């Protein structure tokens, strides 16, 4: 199974280069990158990417800066649709897709997986880690291995927090203040939905320890 939002992102951003450039730059509005860096980080061709970046700059979505003999691009947070577009990217081709894809090999054994913390609440900085909770029959070690490549793609540290269903239920029952905080705040779901998460709290729910 692919990332749940993959089809939505393909539909909304049929032009691969546009989606990739916007996701890279709008989700890290503090970063300025030159064309070759952008091409390398998105796995695209610099020449074609350059044309797309120019289009996006002319539309006001990106800013272009000349630094020495280099042209650097960054997001324009002043654009009226910046907030909405970044939210859309974050939930589609951005970070969530990268993570969901990385966790695909575990999908059969995971009841629910989601991002919490500053990324999910959109209060992240350029150096914020990505905090991920994974509930299911998986090892801490195997998730670290699977998320290693995603860390490189996102250029952020990814910190997995792995629970068995039983462990999650026990810590919820013990009124862990950490989990109460997690439950109260926004999440980006990677595998499963809020519904699966809520069902874990219901009595008699005991599948895949």
């Amino acid at each position, binding site marked *: 199974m692919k990332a749940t939002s993959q089809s939505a992102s393909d539909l909304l951003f049929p032009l691969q280069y546009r989606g990739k450039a916007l996701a890279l730059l709008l989700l890290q509005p503090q970063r300025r990158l030159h064309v070759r860096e952008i091409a390398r980080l998105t796995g695209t061709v610099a020449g074609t990417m350059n044309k797309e970046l120019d289009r996006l700059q002319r539309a006001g979505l990106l800013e272009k800066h000349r630094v020495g003999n280099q042209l650097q691009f960054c997001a324009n947070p002043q654009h009226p649709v910046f907030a909405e577009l970044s939210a859309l990217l974050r939930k589609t081709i951005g970070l969530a897709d990268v993570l969901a894809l990385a966790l695909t090999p575990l999908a059969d054994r995971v009841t629910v997986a989601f991002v919490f913390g500053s990324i999910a609440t959109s209060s992240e900085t350029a150096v914020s880690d990505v905090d991920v909770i994974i509930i299911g029959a998986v090892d801490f*070690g195997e998730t670290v291995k699977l998320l290693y490549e995603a860390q490189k793609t996102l250029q952020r540290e990814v910190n997995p927090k792995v629970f*068995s269903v039983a*462990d999650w239920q026990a810590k919820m029952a013990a009124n862990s203040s*950490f989990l109460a905080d997690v439950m109260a705040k926004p999440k980006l779901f990677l595998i499963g939905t809020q519904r699966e998460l809520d069902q874990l709290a219901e009595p008699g729910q005991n599948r895949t320890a």
Partner: protein
Amino acid sequence: MNSINLLNLAKIELLDPVPLSEDLALRMLASARQRLRDAEFIQNSDETRFDCAYTAIRTVADIGLHLTGFRTSTSKPGHHQTAIACLAHTLGVDETTVRVLDGLRKQRNLTDYDGDLITDAALRECLRQARAMVTRVEAVMGEHPDLKN
């Protein structure tokens, strides 16, 4: 072992050269074993057990460096990270395992500084890795030409 990489780290002062001392190596090994025993003690809280298992891993990483004639410069930030990253060169630990060990290091930081909780899965992984690391360093020390044993 790949000593060129370690020499490069010494050049940028992340590592300091230090002569091998059998006495020190044995004391460090005793410390790693003791931490592992404390980690196995189920009456301890999960947080304490995780912390002890992690410390056992880090001590083994320090032993690895010592056996190759180095120690981390504690004046530099990130000396835990350096010692763990060097395991590939000091004790021949494979890269994927080093990534898992580094994941445990990050978990330890989150627990210590952000009040993050320890899950059963994190504790189980830390114990498994600590046991494997102590066993590995015991084997390496047993065959080390400069240690009498």
